[in-house]
């Protein structure tokens, strides 16, 4: 971090020399940093959406709520356990939750119409929110301060938390690992096969249920990591805290071309940065609306997203 700190003033000074709008860039720097950070968090969540959609063709509406539950679990665990141990447990419990949700709510509907599974996902989301409400009595809870990553740091003209810098770095490392997993391991190959053709891969002896479970485990793992980073930034958790980040992460996944992991990541960063720049411009009311406007524009112009593949329906 010191390294970046040492160099940034020079870089910025350099930009100031070359561009007349340099002052504006410096003004917007905090927003850009926040955007990159929140973009990384969205990216981690959106991978869960995009992988599940790729395999099950299901918009997992409950994913945002799993992310929210991870936040609450951290709060309750950290009350009794040391932070680093609770962080590990948060990740494990969230993965377990994702696994259980899939087994209980989606697996029985494997052969049902797609709409039924989607509605089941909405039902799970409703259930998780209500459970969270029950346990917290609807009160916002304070997220524990995780040492080191919540410390402040000054970059150029902007002061921010270390987590802001850590998020994109961690995101890229995790995504790289995931892409490696999908490209070069046996289970990754199985995942790609299942997402190409569900029925045929079943006939080829791939254990569909195992593949789907692993997909949910990975998605939940990333959501748990994202929750650690996100709530460190936003400090309070409410039962509906997962809804908006969830939706935005989903929009990011669609934006990048649903089913494509790099697409989801790129989409998430674009949305995170744009959203914060709009806040910076003083249009806070529209920062959410903007995300959806972007979604609609991309859907109308290129329904398959930035990196999606086109498919022709056979008649």
């Amino acid at each position: 971090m010191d390294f970046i700190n040492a160099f940034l003033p020079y870089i910025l000074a350099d930009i100031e020399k070359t561009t007349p709008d340099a002052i504006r860039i410096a003004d917007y720097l905090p927003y850009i940093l926040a955007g990159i950070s929140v973009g990384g968090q969205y990216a981690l969540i959106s991978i869960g959406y995009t992988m599940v959609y790729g395999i099950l063709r299901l918009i997992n509406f409950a994913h945002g709520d799993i992310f929210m539950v991870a936040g609450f679990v951290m709060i309750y665990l950290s009350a009794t356990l040391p932070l680093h141990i609770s962080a590990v447990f948060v990740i494990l419990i969230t993965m377990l939750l994702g696994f259980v949700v899939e087994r209980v709510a989606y697996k029985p509907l494997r052969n049902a119409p797609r709409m039924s599974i989607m509605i089941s996902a909405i039902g799970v989301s409703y259930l998780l929110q209500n459970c969270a409400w029950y346990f917290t009595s609807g009160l916002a809870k304070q997220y524990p301060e995780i040492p080191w990553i919540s410390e402040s740091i000054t970059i150029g003209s902007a002061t921010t938390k270390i987590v802001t810098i850590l998020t994109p770095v961690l995101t890229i490392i995790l995504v790289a690992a995931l892409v490696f997993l999908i490209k070069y391991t046996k289970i990754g190959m199985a995942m790609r096969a299942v997402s190409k053709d569900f029925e045929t891969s079943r006939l080829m002896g791939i254990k569909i249920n195992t593949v789907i479970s692993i997909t949910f485990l990975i998605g939940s793992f990333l959501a748990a990591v994202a929750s650690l980073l996100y709530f460190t930034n936003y400090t309070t958790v409410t039962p509906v805290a997962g809804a908006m980040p969830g939706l935005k992460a989903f929009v990011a996944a669609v934006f990048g071309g649903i089913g494509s992991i790099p697409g989801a990541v790129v989409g998430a960063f674009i949305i995170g940065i744009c959203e914060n720049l709009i806040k910076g411009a003083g249009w806070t009311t529209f920062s959410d609306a903007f995300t959806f406007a972007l979604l609609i524009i991309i859907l109308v112009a290129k329904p398959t997203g930035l990196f999606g593949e086109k498919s022709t329906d056979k008649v």
Partner: protein
Amino acid sequence: MKIKENSSLKYISILALIGAMFLIIFILEQLLPPTSMLFMVLKKGAIYSLVAVSLNLLCGFTGLFSLGHAGFMLIGAYTYAIFTIPLEARNAVYQYFDGGIINFTLPVPVALLAAGACAAVFAFLIGLPVLRLKSDYLAIATLGFAEIIRAIFQWDKLGPITNGSNVLRKFPSFSSTIFPFAVAGLCIAIIVLLINSSYGRAFKAIRDDEIAAEAMGINLAKHKQLSFTISSFFAGIGGALLAMFQTTVQAAAFKSSMTYEILLIVVIGGMGSVTGSCISSFLFIAASEWWLRFLDDETYIGSFKVPLLRSGFRKVVFSVVIMIIVLFYQRGIMGTKELSMDAIGRFFRKFKKEEDVA
């Protein structure tokens, strides 16, 4: 000839039933105190029936999966409220915007129609780009539009019209349960007529198989647009009724969770069943607002405290029940069937037969 007699008999019996229903409500209103939970459930149930049936027209009958219903209800609610707040109350309501810029009011029936029309116009415009999208994409695009509508109505630049993010209030509402029943009933009747018309058949054909429907000469774009616009028209009226019921309107309340709730009602009632949607609306509202209330209260039996019961438990139980229905009764209460005199007759005959056997 025989068929004709049968159908006129059917119409008479349906009319008689509706008459009896209104009579019962009227008598109940005389007997029970107006604050009774029953009336609250009946009013809200009637409004939700209308909204659920209008969503069912779209999801269940045309096969278009839209998640933007709350947005159209919001438009309806706001249109109604904006045009009916009495002039003398405007300064108090629009306190931050110098009384607003609209300086006329519409009579309630006209305002209700305007609410529907406004929602329909928005739906038409939104439908132009969005209805070309396939199932899931359509769902999220409409969800997105609902969120955008919500943001626009909260925008303080539009404050002189929408009162920004502040509450709209003091507009005329209703006290009698008959009013929402009459309005919602009339609207649902129109939807039923539509569904049973040639257009209704075309909608169902699109739901069953888009490509075959096109091959039968049904213009997909036109009919989808039609279904979307009509559905939104009635959602708008439903939104206006909801505003009257709540006596206040605030854009922040029309979140996507409201759409989800209505969607769950439709699913529980059965996709493609109007009577199913109505029944499940009343059950849903009654269960969530009334019957399960006791779960929220800490209860003691003697000195023993019943475990788990405390604020919020009702919603947990409720959502578990919903999950059970979604997982194990996928077709909902009615499936695609309708509750009709014939069906009731058949049921009782079957019942009687079983009794005879026993």
